[in-house]
Structure formats: structure tokens, C-alpha cells
């Protein structure tokens, strides 16, 4: 027969101080682990939602990022007349030659300078992105404030994250990078994608300022439908004269999720070391629980509870303790949900901003993690409890 669960709950309540302190220890470990997992989940989300399946990104063959290299501007007319490209209201193809460069800007909170991506685009590049839809079929790009930059002007629009994190990124401010001042005329929101960490301006102005005239780093083509996108991509890649490579924009961003590598590695090491420490602490508490109750356990045996049910009962008590820890740990991290932070991206060589994302999966992993700690700490003491000699214990 199983020992009722309320027995364990009452025991935990009886020794409140000890329970709370052990649970808090576990909670701290869970908090650290959850924080790191939420960080990675947020980063994954930022890159997984970035890019649109209808956008075909064309770069020079061999080039792995928009930042590296470029190709001659004379190829652009060939690209924009390829079949399968969507057109705007005036019948112009949605094709945009672009540059992505890096500028160093000071953070608003004074914690140093950061590399920021600056993108130069053609007017068609804006139209192309305004055409993007999210999963609900709503436009993804929104101009939150102000207006778009005008062609031929030293004007920029900034992504939401840039607006929030950098000094001088409000409408009417001027930003100082490359060869002079740029007027901020608008703020856009791309729905949490990597674009939010970019500054956009006119492609020719950017090219001149960054000494990159006469070419493009990438060309964006907006396909009419998914099949046309696939065909466009293959057509560009297979044309031997162009020496260019096409890829879907979504594929391009998927590759960038690897920027979380260092955090993942360090986070795992930290979480494992902390978990081992917490398991020992839990083991200590459970051994004490067994020792205090040795006479009680013997009584339970006499009443007729079997060894397996005593073992189960104590293991369950340890798990309850760790679940309490997991609960406290998750509650501790809740205020940080949605907090934004930046991470260096090895492909764009600049900062991508993302928010801490407490997903159901992260929480389930945290609970499993805590239960494993409870099991590791609780099994040996429970084993001892089950194997106690009845007579010796009663005499104690």
C-alpha cells in the first residue's frame, strides 16, 4: 500500500525552515538555468521569425553574409527582369540592391560602444518589405513614427531596438557615423525580427559614405508565390554567367541562430555545476529528514507499509521539495520575461537585439531539471530509510 502524499506534505511543512532554505537553493539553480534557456529561446525566436519565405536574397558566390563582399552593379538589371518577381502598383519589379555595413555607436546606458548594422536600400526595398505578411496575414513591417527616408538625402530610419537602446536615435536627432551626420526621420517595427536591430538609409548615400560605390552586397527579389521564389533562387544560382548565389531569406537567418553557441556552452556548464551543488544540498536535507524520523519509519513498517512504499514515499518527498524549488525559481524569473538584450552576431558582425522568452518548453525543461536534482539528492536517503532495521530504529 502506498503512503499518502499528505504525509510528505505535512512533513515538509513541519520543518519549514529547512524546507524553505533547501527549496531556495534549488530555486536559485533553476533560476539560473531558466534565465539561460529563456535567453536562447528568445534568440532562436528572433532569428526563426526573421526573413520572409517570398524574399530571395542574392549574394556573390562564396559569400556567406551580406557583410562580406559584393558584386558589380551591372548585374542588377539582369536580376530585376527575371521572371517570377512581384511588381508594385506602377508595374515596377520589387527588386532592391542593398549594402549592409557596420558602424560603431555608443549605447544609451553608457556601457560602451557596439557594432550596429546599417543597411542601404532602394525605394523598392521598402515596398518589398511592406509587402511581407506575418502568420496571421497582417503586414509585418510598421512605421511606428515619422516617415521613411527620402532618396538622395542623408536621412535614416531606425529599427525599434536601435531606437530603444542607442542615444540620439529619436526623430529629429542626428546620428554621427561614417562621413558625417544623418538625420533620423522615422522609427520602424518589424515585429521582433533581426531588422529591428538595423539602421536603414538610401543605398546610394550609404555606398558613398562607406566607400562602396559601383556595386551591391546583396539584391533582394520579392517573388510572387513560394514556387516562384524557389524557381528564382535556383535560376540565380545555376546561371554560370552571373557567379551569384540565391537563397530564401528565411534560410539565411536560420544559419545565424548559431550565434547563441557560446552562451549555450557556458550556460550548460554553469547549470550543470550548480545542479550538482544543489543535489548535494538536497541530499543533506533528505538524510536529515530520514534521521529525524527513523522511529516513525519503523512504526510505519510495523503498521504494514512495505519497504518499496517507504522508498517511494521519501523519493516523492524529495521531488516535492525540488518542485517547490522549481516553482520559486520560475516565479523569480518572471519579472525578467520580455527583457531585451543584445548579442554579437558572428555573421553580421554586429549586435542583434532579442528579448528573454519564457516559453512553455523552457518551463517544462526547468521542472524536469529540478525533478532530476530531487531524484539525485533523494534516492540514497530514501534507500536508507527503506532498509532501516525496525528494532534498532524503535529503540533509538
Amino acid at each position, binding site marked *: 500500500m502506498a503512503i499518502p502524499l499528505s504525509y510528505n506534505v505535512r512533513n515538509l511543512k513541519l520543518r519549514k*525552515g*529547512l524546507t524553505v*532554505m*533547501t527549496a*531556495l*537553493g534549488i530555486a*536559485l*539553480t533553476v*533560476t*539560473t538555468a531558466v*534565465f539561460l534557456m529563456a535567453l536562447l529561446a528568445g534568440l532562436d525566436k528572433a532569428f526563426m521569425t526573421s526573413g520572409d519565405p517570398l524574399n530571395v536574397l542574392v549574394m*556573390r*558566390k*562564396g*559569400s*556567406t*553574409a551580406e*557583410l*562580406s*563582399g559584393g558584386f558589380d552593379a551591372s548585374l542588377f538589371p539582369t536580376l530585376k527582369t527575371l521572371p517570377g518577381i512581384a511588381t508594385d502598383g506602377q508595374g515596377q519589379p520589387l527588386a532592391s540592391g542593398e549594402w549592409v*555595413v*557596420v*558602424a*560603431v555607436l555608443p549605447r544609451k546606458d553608457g*556601457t*560602451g*560602444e*557596439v*557594432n550596429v548594422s546599417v543597411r542601404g536600400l532602394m525605394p523598392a526595398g521598402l515596398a518589398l518589405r511592406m509587402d511581407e505578411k506575418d502568420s496571421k496575414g497582417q503586414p509585418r513591417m510598421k512605421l511606428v513614427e515619422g516617415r521613411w527616408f527620402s532618396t538622395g538625402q542623408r536621412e535614416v530610419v531606425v529599427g525599434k531596438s536601435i531606437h530603444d537602446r542607442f542615444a540620439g536615435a529619436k526623430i529629429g536627432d542626428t546620428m554621427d*557615423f*561614417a*562621413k558625417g551626420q544623418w538625420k533620423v526621420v522615422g522609427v520602424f517595427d518589424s515585429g521582433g525580427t533581426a531588422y529591428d536591430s538595423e539602421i536603414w538609409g538610401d543605398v546610394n548615400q550609404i555606398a558613398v559614405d*562607406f*566607400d562602396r560605390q559601383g556595386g551591391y552586397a546583396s539584391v533582394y527579389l520579392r517573388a510572387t508565390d513560394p514556387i516562384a521564389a524557389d524557381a528564382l533562387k535556383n535560376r540565380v544560382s545555376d546561371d554560370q554567367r552571373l*557567379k551569384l548565389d540565391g537563397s530564401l531569406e528565411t534560410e539565411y537567418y536560420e544559419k545565424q541562430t*548559431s550565434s547563441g*553557441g*557560446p*552562451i549555450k556552452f*557556458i550556460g550548460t556548464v*554553469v547549470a550543470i*555545476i*550548480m545542479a*550538482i*551543488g*544543489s543535489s*548535494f*544540498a538536497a*541530499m*543533506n*536535507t533528505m*538524510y*536529515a529528514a530520514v534521521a529525524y524520523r527513523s522511529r516513525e519509519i519503523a512504526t510505519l513498517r510495523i503498521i504494514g507499509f512495505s519497504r518499496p512504499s517507504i522508498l517511494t514515499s521519501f523519493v516523492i518527498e524529495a521531488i516535492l521539495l525540488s518542485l517547490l524549488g522549481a516553482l520559486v525559481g520560475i516565479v523569480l524569473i518572471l519579472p525578467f520575461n520580455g527583457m531585451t*538584450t*543584445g*548579442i*554579437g552576431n558572428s555573421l553580421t*558582425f*554586429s*549586435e542583434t537585439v532579442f528579448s528573454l522568452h519564457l516559453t512553455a518548453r523552457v518551463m517544462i525543461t526547468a521542472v524536469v531539471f529540478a525533478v532530476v536534482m530531487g531524484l539525485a539528492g533523494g534516492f540514497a536517503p530514501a534507500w536508507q530509510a527503506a532498509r532501516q532495521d525496525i528494532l534498532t530504529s524503535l529503540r533509538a
Partner: protein
Amino acid sequence: MTLTRFVTKSAFRNRRRSILTVLSITFSLLLLTMMMTVWRSFYIDQGTAQEAQRLVTRHRVSLTQWMPAFYREKIRAIPGVVAVAPNNWFGGLYIDDKPEHFFAQFGTDPDEIFKIFTDVRVPADQLEAWQRDRAGCVVDDQLAKKFGWKLGDRIHVNGTIYPVNIELTIRGIFHAPQPTSSIYFNQTYVEEAVAFAKGQAGTFDVLVDTPEDVARVATAIDDMFHNSPQPTKTESEKAFQLSFINSLGNVKAFILSICFAVVFATLLVSATTMAMSIRERTREVAVLRTLGFTRRSILRLYLGESVIVALTGGAFGCLFALLLISVLAHAPGMGMFFGGMKVTPPTLLLAIFVAGVVGLLSAVFPAYHAAKLDIVEGLRYLG
């Protein structure tokens, strides 16, 4: 029995509990020592004497902008500058784009680069062989070991920034104070193949005659190009490297919060143990008091016990940290974070000190209660 021996004996009277507590503190302190070591090497360590004499000049806008190659001779003319060499990031792929195949390739001037990297050792005959082969390269000894390269081997690197694939013959294997995961080749080789690379430089490495002159030379370089179309930013090699770490995000806050969590967790573990241990001995306290021990000495006894347990844990933690860091420092692919990292005596002392303070703090409450105990009450206590 001396008092010290008495305290030590009581600290380990319940052997299992003490061992578990020590182990728990060991793992926490291991983490703390690691984090402090990372912090020290990023933010406190000033680098070697040779490093302190080197500057890196880049384009002011960002690293992705190039400077004219003739800047080299202008920099050389500044008093205090001993040697200057261009250092260009090639950014090519070896085999494929998997992280385990990643290493840095730099195009430079074979005649001058090792006059600047004074702490890098390369055999004279190998250096000469490299200087004579335009398509040759020198590789880091750790990297050569990893890929099984030997002198005379050919490596093929696919260009990503430059539209050219280069075939390099290994002419030399160099030894750097810490693994660098890089190879150096002659920049002229790339310039011949790619027109737009001609006359451009990504960064310049500069050797200054004395460490005291470094700041002055850095300002002199930047002032010289201040109003040109390509202004520069010159910083110490250490600061240059730190900017890569900073680009990973708010590393400082990250390390601090882990340290805080670890210290607090240790405090909890130690406090739990002391609370259990002291409560068990309520009757013993009363006996000690009847024997003539004052309240004050009881308090000291228990505080001492707790500190001893925590210090033991701290010492083991430091020991493990020493082992783990030395493993990580030489593990492949860890160069960015742990490459060349060492646990220094001050870090160890600080870690042990933290352990001691945590032990002391965790025992304050239970020990105070024990000392305050009424003797008669204590003798009656059944446990």
C-alpha cells in the same frame, strides 16, 4: 584536546553531512572561481609586457572599413613607432563552414609581422622560407596539431569576403604564448588575385618603443588621419580584443549575476547545515555551559565550525577550478573565452575569503540562538 581540535572534530562529527556540505560548497566555489578568473582576464589583466607595447589601428567607422595601405609608412614616421605591419582579415572557409573547422587567416607582411609580435616564436629558417615563398604561410602550433599539418603541407582556403580561393603551403609553425587559432600569409598573394584588395589594409599592428609611449603614439596616429576621408581609431591590443568580448552582449552583468546566485546558494547550503547541526546538539550546548564554557566561547565554537566546513569546501573548489581552467585553456575551440586563462593566487585567495565569510555569516543565527540557550531548558531537550 585543544580547542582547535575540538572545533574540527565537531565540524565533522556527522561525517556524511559534512562531506555533502563540503561537496556542495566545492561546486559552488568552483563556479565562483571560474567566473572571477574570466572577469580578471577580461577586465583587470593588463596583458603581458609585450602586449602592452602593441597598438592596433583600424578605420574609425568600424572594422569592416578599409584604410589605404600607405598609412603604414605615415604611421612609421611617428616618433616612438618601432614597427608597423598590415593585418588583413581574410575570413575564408577551410573545408566547410562548421565551427570546428574555423580559424583566422590574416594577410600581412612576412618581413615585419614577427618584429611586432615579439612574444611569438618562429624558427629562423622557417621564417626565412616563408619570406621567400609568396604563396606560403605560417600556422599556430596548436592549430597544426589539431589538423595534423606538417611543414610543406598545402591548405586550401575558400574566400568569402574576397572572390578568390587561396592555396597556401605551410612554411613555418609558430608558437604563441596562448593558442591563437590563426595562420598568417603574404597579403601580396591576395592583392595579385583581387583588384579591389590592392592598396587596402584592414588593421595595422604597431609596436611602440616603450609602454609609457603607447598612449601618446595612439593619439598621434589618430590625430594624423583625423580630417582625412578615412579617419582611424587606435587602441591597445588588449582593448581591441576586449571589444570583441563586449560585442557578445552584456558580459559583465552576466558574470556578476552568476556570481551573486552562486554566493547566495552557498550561503543557503551552509546555513541549512549549521542549523541542523546546532539543533541536534542543543543538549550538548547545555552540558558545555555547565562545564564552564561561556556564551561567548560557545558562539565562537560554532562560528569556527561553520567556517572550517566552508573553507574546506572553498579549498576543494579552488583546486577543481585550477584543474578545469587549465583543461579549458588548452581545449580546442575555447580560444575566445578561455585561451591562455590562468587562475592567479589573488583570485584563489579571494575565493577562499568569500567561502570563509559565507561560512561565518551562515552560522551567525543558529550559533547566536545556541549561545543564548537556557541551561535547564537545554538539558531537558529531547531532540
